[in-house]
Every structure is written in structure tokens, then in C-alpha cells.
């Protein structure tokens, strides 16, 4: 009898209305106008105004012209997500199972660096990865990099930046699902399987899958749409779709092209998310 009894009546709608109205007006309606804008006559401009011409050609033009940045976004975002998964899993596992009474402190430390501005953190990486910095110098010394080799303005720097910046989005959901696992299950797996690694893949990994799924989504989505890392750590050779959209909007004022590219990115992400969640078999997650 102790389940929450939800009250009926007008008050519920009244409480809900302002927030929903805000989201409707400034999230849903904009998506609609994004779709509309993406079909405007590409010949229009801010001064002359736009006319709706059902220009589906905007989409094929955008795909034709910008397929490279689009592909790069997905590849870079994917690699960064995979790296985050490895680093984040180690960290989340350590916090959930090995940190003992330092659990809370470590959790706070995971989030703490990310209270400093995203841009300032990324600028720091620019300094760390600089051509005469410690890392480049040591890599040159080890002959991993040639004597004129560099990290900045390469995909390595961009992916490193993405990995760093979105790591907490991976760690927190992973920690949440690892922390829920009954410790005795892991101990029992130690009895059942000869090697701890087998126990890990038979017991811990499957049980942490919900965290893996939501962590990878939370990391991949912003990473694929990001352009700050490319802009600060990369070069035009690493241009991702985010920077294209942003410059089409703000510099080129080509709204129809920018909107259709934006739509393509969103549809692509939604499609990938759906396929991925289906595959992982955790549909109840969303």
C-alpha cells in the first residue's frame, strides 16, 4: 500500500505548464523551424529574406559537399568514445570496488576538473601538446615522432582533446551501474572461473552493460557535434561537421545549408543511437 499515490486534478498541469511551455517554445518549435529552414530556397539571404521552396536539394548538396567533415565527426567521436570507455571503465571500476572509504572523495575528484571552463581546459591541452612542449619533445626523443613531427593540428590532438573533455560523461554512468553490482557476485565468479579475466567478462561486464550503453551515448553525442577541440587543437584538415555548421550560420550566413547539415547530423545520431541500443538489448534504457 506504500506506493506513491499520484494526485489527479488541475494542479499537476499547472505545475508542469511553465516548463513544458518553455521547452515547447524554445526546443520543439526551433526544431520545426530548423526543418523549415533546411528546405528554404538556398538563394535567399538575411537581407532578401527566405522563401520556402521545398528545396530537398539542400540535403544532397550538403551531403555532397560536406561528407568528409561528417564522416570525420563520426570517426573521431567514435574513437574518442572508445578511449573514454577504456579509461572510464578503469576509473569507475576502481572507484566502485577498490576505493573503500575514499569513494566519495574520488567521485568528487572525477567531476572537479570539469568545473573549470571547457575552453580554458582545451587551451591548456594546446600548451601541453605544443610543438616545443614536454610531450612532443619526449616523443621525438623516442623517435615516435620525427624531428619535425608535431601533435597539434593532427587528428591525434583532436581525439585526445575530445577524449579528455567528455570523460566524466562516461565515468559517471559506468560508476552508477558498477556500484549497483552485488559484490558477492564477483566473489562467486572468482570461485567459478579459473581466471579472473574470464570472471570479469562473464559477470562484471554484462552486469555493467546499461552503464556502458548510456555512457557511450552521453560521450559520443556531444563529441560528434563538438567543434571547439578541432578549432583549438586541430587545423582545417581536421574540420568536423560542428565547425562547418557553425561557420555556415555565423560566417557564411547560409542558413538553409547549415540547417540541412544540422538535420543530417541529428538524423544520423538518432539512427545510430537506435541501432546501438537495439543491439545492446537495453531498450528500456531510454
Amino acid at each position, binding site marked *: 500500500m*506504500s506506493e*506513491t499515490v*499520484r*494526485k489527479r486534478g488541475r494542479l*499537476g*498541469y499547472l*505545475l*508542469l505548464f*511553465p*516548463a*513544458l511551455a518553455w*521547452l515547447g517554445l*524554445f*526546443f*520543439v*518549435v*526551433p526544431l520545426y*523551424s*530548423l526543418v523549415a*529552414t533546411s528546405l528554404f530556397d538556398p538563394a535567399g539571404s*538575411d537581407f532578401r529574406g527566405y522563401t520556402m521552396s521545398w528545396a530537398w536539394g539542400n540535403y544532397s548538396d550538403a551531403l555532397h559537399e560536406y561528407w568528409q567533415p561528417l564522416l570525420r565527426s563520426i570517426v573521431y567521436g567514435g574513437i574518442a568514445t572508445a578511449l573514454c570507455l577504456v*579509461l*572510464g571503465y578503469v*576509473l569507475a*571500476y*576502481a*572507484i566502485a570496488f*577498490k576505493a573503500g572509504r575514499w569513494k566519495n572523495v*574520488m567521485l*568528487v575528484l*572525477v*567531476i*572537479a*576538473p570539469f*568545473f*573549470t*571552463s571547457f*575552453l*580554458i*581546459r*582545451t*587551451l*591548456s*591541452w*594546446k*600548451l*601541453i601538446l*605544443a610543438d616545443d612542449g614536454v610531450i612532443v619533445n619526449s616523443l621525438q626523443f623516442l623517435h615516435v615522432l620525427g624531428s619535425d613531427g608535431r601533435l597539434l593540428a593532427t587528428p591525434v590532438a583532436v581525439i585526445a582533446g575530445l577524449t579528455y573533455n567528455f570523460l566524466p560523461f562516461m565515468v559517471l554512468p559506468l560508476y552508477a551501474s558498477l556500484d549497483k553490482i552485488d559484490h558477492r557476485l564477483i566473489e562467486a565468479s572468482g570461485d567459478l572461473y579459473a581466471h579472473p579475466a574470464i570472471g570479469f567478462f562473464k559477470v562484471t561486464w554484462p552486469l555493467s552493460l546499461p552503464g556502458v550503453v548510456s555512457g557511450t*551515448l552521453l560521450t559520443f*553525442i556531444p563529441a560528434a557535434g*563538438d*567543434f571547439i577541440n578541432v578549432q583549438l587543437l586541430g587545423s582545417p584538415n581536421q574540420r568536423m*561537421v*560542428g565547425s562547418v555548421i557553425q561557420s555556415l*550560420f555565423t560566417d557564411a550566413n547560409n542558413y538553409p545549408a547549415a*540547417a540541412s547539415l*544540422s538535420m543530417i*547530423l*541529428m538524423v544520423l545520431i538518432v539512427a545510430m*543511437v537506435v541501432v546501438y541500443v537495439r543491439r545492446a538489448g537495453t531498450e528500456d534504457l531510454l
Partner: protein
Amino acid sequence: MTGRWLRERLVLVLGILVLLYTFVPIAVVVLMSFNAPASRNVYRFDAFTLDNWLNPCTDPSMCDAVRRSVEIGLLATVVATILGTLAAFALVRHDFVGRSATNLLIFLPMAAPEIVMGSSLLALFVAAGFSGQLGFWTILIAHIMFCLSFVVVTVRARLAGMDDTLEQAAMDLYATPAQTFWRVTFPLVFPGILGAALLSFSLSFDDFIITNLNAGTTTTFPMYVWGVAQRGVPMQVNVIGTLMFAISIAIVLGSELNNRRRSKALA
């Protein structure tokens, strides 16, 4: 013997290494805040100075941008926290038609790429003929929009975790509905609301992608950093970065100490 010791702690050691890695850029930020650069174009540590801390507003436009970001952050936090808290109460405590659609509407802004949200808002403002008025208010509207969902989710979690027999007990002990709310419900949900507000402020203060698209000529702090990143970064930017880090650490430590003190009294 040592092999076993190491193997048992290997994961912890690796985890701590990952944690250290996340602090490397912060160390650089703090270090650079004490840097006296030889030239504006070379971004590296040259000499120690306190100048950046003593004169943070050498570039007045930076301090203007910080002030604007704080203003927008505070306003967005207040509005988003109020609207989001009301909605969280409705979601947990009230029955209404269209619950799953509502949940979806609240979830989507957290999952959508910022570039898509930013560009769609811009498309709306342009379509509505506001392209000339982009600035403080359009930024504020956008910030409230993306903070809202985070507030709803945070407060809802706190509310859902609250035992509703506490409110029944209050009613049973002669508290009217209003008294029940202010004496029992609100004090118990307050930590969640506070957490949501802090989260909102830091999201708003740090946002660049959405803001940049809808800012017109107005400059927030992240936009200022973006601008100077192309020309040469004044070291005072690192002072702001260090301060942001220090303030958030202080808030977290303060609440942690408060908890510790409370549980100490237990023993």
C-alpha cells in the same frame, strides 16, 4: 608477495593515474595564472608573477564578459530552477495525461547535440525576425532551455527517493497541506534543488556552442576566451579558470565537511 600486492591494487593504481590525467590541464591553468609571458604570441611559462591575480581586469572586456556570464548564469539558474522544480513535483506527485511524451520532451534536450539545439534556436529567431536582436535575452532564453531538463531530472530523483509516508505522518500530526509542504517536503527536497541550481549555473556559465550561435554581438566569458584563443590569450583568463575550479572545490568540500560533521555527531 609483491606481485600479489600489486595485482590487487593494479586497478586502483590505474584508476588514480586516470584521475591524475584529468588534473593535468588544471595544473597548467593554475600555473599559467602566475605566468609573466615574454610575448603575447608565445603561450608558455616564462616567469613567476602575481600581477595576473592583482590586476585581473587589465583587459576590461574580459571582466565585462565574466560579469555578463555571471548575470546570465544567475538569471538562468533562478528561472530554470523554479520552473524545473515545479515540473519535477508534477511528475512525481501528480497524475496527468501524456506522461511518456512529457518524459521524452524532458529527456531530449539532454541528448540532442548542442550544435543542433543552437542552430535550431537560431533558425527560430531568424524566422521570427529577431536576427537583429540577438544578445543578452536570446542567450538567456537558450540557457534556461538547456538547464531546465537537468533541473527536472535532479529534483525528480530527490523527490522520488523521498518516503512519502513522511508527508502522511505530517498530515496525521495536524499539519495542513501548506504546513506539510513547508515544514517537511521542502526542507527534505532542498538539497536536490540546491544541487540542481549549482549544476545549472555551471552549465550556463560554461556554455559556448549554443551561446555563440545566438549571441549576436554580446560576449560571454567563453566567447571571450574563444576570441582571444585566435589572437593570444591574456594570462588573466587562467586566473578566472583557477577561481572557477577553486570555488567549485570549496562548495563541494564545504558540503562534504558538513556531512562529515553530522555523521561524527552520530558516534
